[in-house]
């Protein structure tokens, strides 16, 4: 216990006597002869008890009492009063002096007063201690309670989450492994915006960020404790979709799309956030692959509706021919039999052509190059259609430049290409009911380092819509008879050879196809 004591009295005699007796009682006594001095000493040593005379020159005891109480209200002050100074004594009590003793000072009385002062100090201290302790205790316990509640909530949340994940994983083959193998970065974040868990891919590519801040893995505007996906989710309490950029462990950056899902605790507050980030580059790559596959499929594959229509017509035509032949035989009608047989022949040849086109189309094969005489080749092509054209009373004229020389070509497919055009010319003439005489001119020649073929007919011609869509897959102006494949394939073949095909036409008058091929096969295919 603090045994310091300040004694203030203007009479030296009293100071001496009292300080001796007080020291004997075990106090450490400081003396002052006036108020100012007393304050100085008081400020320096902070004695818990002050014993002061009231009547002093300068600052009197009551003023001193006030000042002391103002500076350190816990100080207990005992006033020394003169004989008959009852008013002053009472006044000092009002100013919170703890007691007064009157002169001449009785030692016992003084002792009692001092003891009371001590007691008061003691009790005050104890009370303070208890109060502080109690407050501390309550704080502690409250904090513990909150923490425990939180934990329970989180625990339940995490349990719920992992139960849900287990359920989903259970539906998938491979169980929880699947989540580790998902081609996305999965991470779980808590309210303090710290990463709580990550999946394997995350660990592999971005590093094990468990315990780090949620925004650290991002770069750019999302690398911020208010703008990272988790922060936004906690703020809005709703799932977010964000385009962001993440940093790989090796420093590389890559764009991602982040979807977040809030995980709520029992009271409905968002406790955790799951971030699922899909690597855009990967997604785009896959998307492009899928698109390419789709394009490939739809160009390789046959649009059944379109092709099958042509096929159905051919089959009907075949039925027709057969019916005529059969019924012709039954009725012994030779003319009908002949008619039917012609129909069958025409239809079969159409079927053959379609099958060839389809086969060619379905199987992209490497071109088989050979070096051959252009004149011979053209002659070959002309010969294969000559009879058919002549049978229809169409004049067929061939103009081949004999000095054309050789060229490099896959003869087999180029034949198909030219035959498709010639047959179209034939059909165009047949379609045209206006002109009396029809003619197809097949020309071939050399133009510097190129070979050209020209096929002209004076058939029905083509309108602009037809000309523009001529080489499009499945476009046909021939109604039931067209497959929409012929010219598409022709163009493809020519382009594969590094050549070009063009057409001019006047509706009702004529059409001319011009094919130009390089002499040598192109170096780069």
């Amino acid at each position, binding site marked *: 216990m603090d045994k310091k004591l300040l004694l203030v009295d203007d009479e030296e005699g009293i100071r001496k006597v009292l300080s001796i007796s007080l020291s004997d009682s075990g106090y450490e006594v400081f003396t002052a002869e006036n108020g100012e001095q007393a304050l100085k000493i008081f400020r320096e040593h902070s004695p818990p008890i002050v014993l002061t005379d009231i009547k002093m020159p300068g600052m009197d005891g009551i003023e001193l009492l006030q000042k002391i109480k103002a500076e350190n209200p816990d100080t207990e002050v005992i006033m020394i009063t003169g004989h008959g100074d009852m008013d002053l004594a009472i006044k000092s009590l009002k100013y919170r002096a703890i007691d007064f003793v009157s002169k001449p000072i009785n030692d016992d009385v003084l002792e009692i007063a001092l003891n009371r002062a001590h007691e008061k100090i003691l009790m005050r201290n104890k009370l303070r201690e208890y109060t502080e302790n109690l407050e501390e205790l309550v704080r502690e316990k409250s904090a513990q309670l909150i923490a425990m509640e939180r934990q329970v909530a989180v625990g339940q949340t995490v349990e719920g989450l992992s139960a849900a994940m287990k359920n989903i994983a259970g539906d998938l083959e491979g169980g929880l492994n699947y989540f580790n193998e998902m081609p996305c970065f999965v991470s779980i974040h808590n309210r303090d915006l710290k990463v709580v868990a990550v999946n394997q891919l995350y660990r592999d590519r971005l590093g094990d960020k468990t315990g780090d801040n949620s925004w650290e893995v991002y770069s750019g505007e999302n690398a911020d404790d208010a703008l990272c996906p988790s922060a936004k989710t906690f703020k809005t309490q709703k799932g977010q979709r964000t385009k962001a950029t993440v940093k790989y462990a090796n420093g590389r950056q890559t764009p991602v799309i982040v979807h977040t899902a809030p995980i709520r605790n029992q009271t409905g507050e968002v406790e955790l956030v799951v971030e699922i980030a899909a690597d855009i580059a990967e997604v785009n790559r896959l998307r492009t692959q899928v698109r390419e596959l789709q394009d490939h499929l739809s160009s390789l594959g046959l649009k059944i*509706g379109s092709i*099958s*229509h*042509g096929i*159905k*017509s051919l*089959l*009907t*035509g*075949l*039925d*027709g*021919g057969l*019916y*005529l032949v059969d*019924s012709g035989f039954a009725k012994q009608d030779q003319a*009908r039999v002949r*008619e039917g047989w012609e*129909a069958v022949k*025409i*239809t079969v040849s159409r079927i053959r052509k379609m099958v060839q086109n389809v086969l060619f189309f379905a199987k992209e094969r490497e071109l088989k190059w050979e070096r051959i005489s252009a004149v011979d080749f053209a002659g070959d092509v002309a010969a294969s259609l000559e009879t058919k054209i002549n049978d229809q009373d169409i004049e067929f004229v061939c103009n081949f430049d004999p000095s054309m020389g050789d060229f490099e070509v896959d003869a087999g497919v180029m034949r198909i290409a030219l035959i498709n055009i010639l047959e179209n010319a034939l059909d165009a003439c047949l*379609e045209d009911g206006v002109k009396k005489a029809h003619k197809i001119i097949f020309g071939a020649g050399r133009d510097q380092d190129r070979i050209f073929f020209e096929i002209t007919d004076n058939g029905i011609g083509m309108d602009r819509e037809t000309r523009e869509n001529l080489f499009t897959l499945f476009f046909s*102006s*021939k*109604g*039931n*008879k067209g497959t929409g494949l012929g010219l598409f394939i022709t163009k493809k073949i020519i382009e594969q050879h590094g050549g070009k095909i063009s057409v001019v036409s006047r509706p009702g008058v004529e059409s001319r196809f011009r094919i130009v091929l390089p002499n040598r096969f192109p170096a780069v295919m």
Partner: protein
Amino acid sequence: MPKKILIIDDDPVIVKYLKAVFSDNGYATCSAGSSMEGLEVVKEEKPDLICLDLQMPGEWGPRFYRRLRKDKELKDTPVIVVSGIDGDHAIKDAVAFVKKPFDSEKLVGIVKNTIG
């Protein structure tokens, strides 16, 4: 007097086929190779039934049908659609839809049921 059937199809082989089938079953026939021609022939010949193909160059089958329905005299002529493509959404009141390739006996049966 035999009932007359108008065949509208751009494929001459199919026209020949249908003509043979129908005339073998006692019907008179006439034909047209396009829907434009068809409109003319319909007015001239006034057939009792029309066999219509849907996909033809120039005007499409359903267009012909709409034109037909607009003409007061001709709009009640029964129409059978014979086609390789699904036309039932394009032509609503056709008597029947026959898909190519078809069974000629069935077709004749439908015609008999319609016009006798």
